[in-house]
C-alpha cells in the first residue's frame, strides 16, 4: 500500500533563506513521487516528479527534490525563498499499476516572512 507522511504541517522561513519541506513515503512498488503546490483559492500545480530516472529532480521556480530510497524520503528544497513561494505544498506517491491513482500527504503550509 502507498502512503505519504509530510513531517511538518507548517514551515516558516524568511525571504532569501533556504526552504526544506520534508516528505517520507511508503510504497509496495518502486514509486513515482510528485510535489504539487496550491496557492490560496487555486487548483494544484505540478512542481516536479520522480519516475525512476535521476534521483535529483529539478522542478519549476527553482525547486528541486532528491529521492533517497534508503531513507524512503523525497524532501523538497529551494536555495532562496521568495514571497511568491508562500503556498500549500503536497507530497504525492503514485501506484504504477491500475489507474495511476495518487495518494496525497496532508500538506505543508509554507509562510515566507519579508
Amino acid at each position, binding site marked *: 500500500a502507498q502512503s505519504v507522511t509530510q513531517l511538518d504541517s507548517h514551515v516558516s522561513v524568511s525571504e532569501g533563506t533556504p526552504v526544506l519541506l520534508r516528505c517520507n513515503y511508503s510504497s509496495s512498488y518502486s514509486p*513515482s513521487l*510528485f510535489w*504539487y503546490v496550491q496557492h490560496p483559492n*487555486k*487548483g*494544484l*500545480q*505540478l512542481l516536479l*516528479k520522480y*519516475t525512476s530516472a535521476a534521483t535529483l529532480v529539478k522542478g519549476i521556480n527553482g525547486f528541486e527534490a532528491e529521492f533517497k530510497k534508503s531513507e524512503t524520503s523525497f524532501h523538497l528544497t529551494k536555495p532562496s525563498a521568495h514571497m511568491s513561494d508562500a503556498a500549500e505544498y*503536497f507530497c504525492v506517491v*503514485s*501506484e*504504477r*499499476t*491500475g*489507474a*495511476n*491513482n*495518487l495518494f*496525497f*500527504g*496532508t*500538506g505543508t503550509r509554507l509562510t515566507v516572512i519579508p
Partner: protein
Amino acid sequence: DAGITQSPRHKVTETGTPVTLRCHQTENHRYMYWYRQDPGHGLRLIHYSYGVKDTDKGEVSDGYSVSRSKTEDFLLTLESATSSQTSVYFCAISESVQLGRSYEQYFGPGTRLTVT
C-alpha cells in the same frame, strides 16, 4: 494550463438535496478523477474513470456516484447531500496509463460546495 473546467465553481445547497458537479476537459485524456479536499486530509480520491462508461470507486466513495458518457465530461453526483460533504472538490485528468510508468495528473480549479 491543461484544459480542465469545473462547474459550478461555488455552490450552496441544503441537506438532502441532490447535487451534480461537472468536469469538462479538452485534452482528450482517457483517465479522469474526482477528489475532495478537507483540512488535515490532503486530497482524497472519490471516484475515477478509465474510459467512457468505465468507472471505479476510490477511497471515499460512499454517498457519491459518477457518470461518464463522453470522453470530455465526468459528472459527480451527491445523491442526498449531507453536511459532511461540505468540501472543495477537484477534478483531475491523466493520459493513458502504461504498466510500470506513472503520469502526472492535471487538476481543475475546484468547486467549493457548502451543504447547510
